[in-house]
């Protein structure tokens, strides 16, 4: 810890922590050490305030309303779309679809894309390190349309084997869908390369960015990615909200996912004409409050600076790896060269569940289990891992507390 000069740290961590009310709380008599950020992130006061402000000052249904509140709500809602657009540098607002979250976004693409493009004998490529949310939707459509699900394998370090990916690419592949960053291994995948290879065969790529959006600056135009999804709740925004970015050229060709209010131009019982993008994919009253909260969250993150966050988190991650390595019989699950966010581990043959429970009693929140990536656990032949996942509001002292906690639990459980 002492090695780090304050000059290395690009922001005032104490000021930042003060902005997150929950970080001031205690758990079982200890100050909370929240290291479950890959599951969900905590919210800064500005996000909480934005929700309160919405409901106390301008709550109303959006679009089509002539009255004042409806105008304010519509303005706020559409401003959030522009903030999200700018955040990932999308070319147009109409490429930004509000969803319920990552899972909802993947299901939307899976269903609509399949309806437009998937034929018997086609295939969809995913990877060996998927979250269930990027497996099951594709299993469902593959079964529905008689297509095949193919998997890019990984090695013992938790890195995708790109030579195997090359072999899977052929003219029956309709789409490649994979995580930017793995939630259980921390692996940052070489997505530029993966997209480039797919595009050589005109195959679109979806990036599950649930674990990337809060750690890395993302530029969809530079990546040239076709679809990108993330969840608001994992990037300091409210629950029940997410973003699907899709290139207009694809979204235009895809049928709507859900039917209802907002997504139509005209309706008769005989024939319905759909609205234009992005509304075509947004049936029903949207999660207005969620959009407004996400807007505040993205602006907050931008005010700190994604580059600063990335720099700080890299230092923190490095420190965590170093310190955890000092624990006897601890082994990391996932040792990719390029990692971010989550550190997964096993300590001897201690059951992760036991470890998690003891750490909790010490005020340290980690997640244990398969992290919705059962195939990853099967690959490593383990029941689950202990996962500590970091955010920019975590400190080096908290890493120390984690290490001390694991040591203590280990003593009890060995």
């Amino acid at each position, binding site marked *: 810890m002492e090695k780090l000069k304050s000059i290395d740290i690009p922001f005032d961590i104490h000021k930042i922590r003060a902005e997150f009310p929950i970080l001031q709380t205690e758990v079982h008599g200890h100050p909370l050490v929240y290291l479950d950020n890959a599951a969900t992130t905590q919210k800064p006061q500005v996000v909480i305030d934005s929700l309160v402000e919405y409901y106390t000052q301008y709550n109303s249904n959006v679009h089509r309303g002539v009255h004042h509140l409806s105008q304010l709500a519509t303005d706020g809602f559409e401003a959030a779309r522009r903030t999200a657009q700018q955040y990932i540098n999308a070319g147009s607002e109409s490429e930004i679809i509000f969803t319920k979250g990552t899972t909802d976004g993947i299901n939307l693409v899976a269903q609509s894309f399949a309806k437009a493009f998937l034929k018997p004998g086609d295939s969809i490529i995913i990877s060996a390190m998927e979250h269930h949310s990027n497996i099951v939707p594709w299993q469902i459509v593959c079964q529905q349309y008689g297509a095949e699900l193919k998997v890019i394998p990984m090695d013992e370090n938790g890195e995708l084997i790109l030579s195997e990916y090359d072999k899977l690419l052929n003219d029956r592949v309709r789409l490649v869908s994979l995580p930017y960053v793995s939630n259980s291994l921390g692996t940052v995948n070489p997505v530029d390369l993966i997209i480039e290879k797919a595009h050589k065969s005109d195959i679109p790529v979806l990036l599950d960015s649930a674990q990337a959006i809060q750690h890395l600056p993302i530029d969809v135009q530079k990546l040239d990615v076709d679809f990108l999804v993330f969840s608001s709740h994992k990037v300091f925004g409210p629950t029940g909200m997410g973003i699907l970015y899709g290139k207009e050229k694809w979204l235009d060709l895809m049928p709507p996912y859900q039917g209802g209010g907002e997504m139509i131009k005209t309706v008769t019982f005989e024939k319905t004409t759909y609205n234009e993008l992005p509304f075509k994919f947004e049936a029903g009253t949207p999660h207005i409050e969620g959009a407004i909260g996400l807007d505040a969250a993205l602006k907050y993150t931008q005010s700190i600076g994604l580059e600063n966050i990335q720099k700080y988190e890299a230092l923190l991650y490095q420190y965590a790896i170093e310190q955890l390595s000092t624990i006897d019989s601890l082994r990391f699950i996932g040792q990719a060269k390029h990692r971010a966010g989550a550190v997964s581990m096993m300590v001897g043959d201690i059951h992760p569940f036991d470890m998690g429970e003891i750490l909790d009693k010490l005020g340290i929140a980690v997640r244990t*289990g398969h992290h919705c990536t059962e195939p990853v656990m099967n690959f490593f032949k383990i029941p689950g891992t202990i996962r500590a996942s970091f955010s920019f509001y975590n400190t080096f002292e908290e890493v120390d507390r984690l290490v001390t906690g694991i040591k203590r639990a280990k003593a009890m459980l060995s």
Partner: protein
Amino acid sequence: MNIDQTQAEIVDDFSFFEDWMDKYEYIIQLGKELPIIDAAYKTPEHLIKGCQSQVWMHAEEKDGKVYFTADSDALITKGLVSLVIKVLSGHPAAEIAQSELTFIEKIGLKSHLSPTRSNGLLSMVKQMKLYAYTYMAQQQLKSQ
């Protein structure tokens, strides 16, 4: 000792520990006293699948009393199983079936354990009572 006496004793034991860490130490310790299930019974049929850890359990009747053996892949779970077996094992089926396991509440397990864990504990108790009812039904059949 009957079921309620054992319960009282456990409540008493736990009252010595102020800190939950000590209680955990004790629970883990108890796991080591668990009458371990015969390897032959460690099969899927004897598995009570929890959300994060697994428990195998076997019940046997001898001289009108039901005896339980078990195992788990997680130590804390093992300790909890051990606790419940300590209370219920070696008693007539009817007593097991009718017992009220008040000690779980009393020693604060229900509020301190993760719900995953305490739900597991409750389904374990349910399973044990089910065994007891099964034996009672068998006795009923025999006596007819």
